[in-house]
């Protein structure tokens, strides 16, 4: 009920959905589908990303086609919604085609748009990203772009109709946390749509900080799937996002250079 006091609508409105969870989960990097399923449950995420890749042709590893089919079955069984991504695309053109294929494959208008500009850092390519976003919005997609922490670019993406922005904290899989919290806060001030911190999260305090900075949700993949205990880390991230959201709404004390006694000085006894 504190929640209610702090905020009449605790739900996250994202891409036209109303979500209880502020955590988006990536499916990459899990050692097994069983671990993935358990992590989804522990995270309580309602929206998980998947990629599109070439079907292994018969003669190749047979189990594989099976496991791929199984992926969708697992997600359906867990009752989560699929958020396809365009991972691996280096041009607007490839990203747009991939998004359209994803729409066919998953019958969804949601797309996590990634247009990468550098193989080592997997950082986004601002101009290509903006171009692809514009085309996909025009084509009726609900576009969630993976973007840099540049507040101006974030606003341009919203101006062309993106449903949210997903700025990075640090390079994908780096676990470096939020390298420039200041810019994330500026992005929050710059746009009206939901801000989802994407990429760079390494541990729970990173996720809590993202929410405290004003993000509406946090996306985690490697931080959970590649942790020694992915299920425990999924639970940690769930709790961290809740903690950060509660703290932001609770209104933290200001930072001060000197101390403020938590015990009054008045009434201090004298023993000599």
């Amino acid at each position, binding site marked *: 009920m504190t929640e209610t006091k702090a905020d009449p609508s605790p739900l996250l409105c994202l891409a036209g959905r109303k979500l209880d969870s502020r955590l988006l989960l*990536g*499916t*990459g*990097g*899990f050692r097994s589908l069983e671990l*993935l399923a358990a992590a989804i449950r522990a995270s309580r995420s309602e929206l998980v*990303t*998947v*990629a*599109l*890749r*070439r*079907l292994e*042709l*018969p003669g190749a590893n047979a189990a594989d*086609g099976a496991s*791929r*089919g199984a*992926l*969708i079955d697992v997600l359906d069984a867990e009752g989560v919604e*699929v958020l396809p*991504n365009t*991972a691996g695309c280096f041009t607007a053109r490839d990203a747009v*085609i991939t998004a*359209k*294929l*994803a729409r*066919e*494959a*998953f*019958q969804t208008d949601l797309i*996590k748009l*990634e247009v990468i500009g550098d193989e080592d850092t997997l950082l986004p390519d601002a101009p290509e990203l903006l171009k692809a976003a514009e085309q996909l919005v025009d084509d009726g997609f609900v576009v969630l772009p993976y973007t840099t922490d540049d507040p101006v670019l974030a606003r341009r993406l919203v101006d062309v109709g993106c449903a949210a922005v997903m700025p990075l904290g640090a390079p994908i899989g780096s676990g470096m946390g939020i390298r420039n919290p200041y810019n994330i806060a500026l992005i929050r001030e710059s746009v009206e749509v939901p801000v989802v911190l994407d990429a760079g999260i390494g541990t729970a305090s990173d996720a809590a900080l993202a929410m405290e900075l004003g993000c509406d949700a946090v996306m985690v*993949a490697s931080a959970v799937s590649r942790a020694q205990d992915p299920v425990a880390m999924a639970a940690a991230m769930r709790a961290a996002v809740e903690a950060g959201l509660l703290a932001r709404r609770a209104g933290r004390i200001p930072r001060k250079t000197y101390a403020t006694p938590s015990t009054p000085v008045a009434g201090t006894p004298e023993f000599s």
Partner: protein
Amino acid sequence: MIVLNGERREHRAGEVVAALVASLGLPARARGVAVAIDGEVVPRAVWESRAIQEGARVEVLTAMQGG
């Protein structure tokens, strides 16, 4: 000849997309599957009717863990 997922493969005259997909062991209307020919999406609605031409570059994609 066609190029399927980057591999050269014999062309079966008149083969439609649905048949190709089935030949790869995928159930009809399998979720998580999409097909592109020569860089263009092939909507599921036309899988039954759309014939694959000699020389076509075909991509058959499925869902996998990612992102």
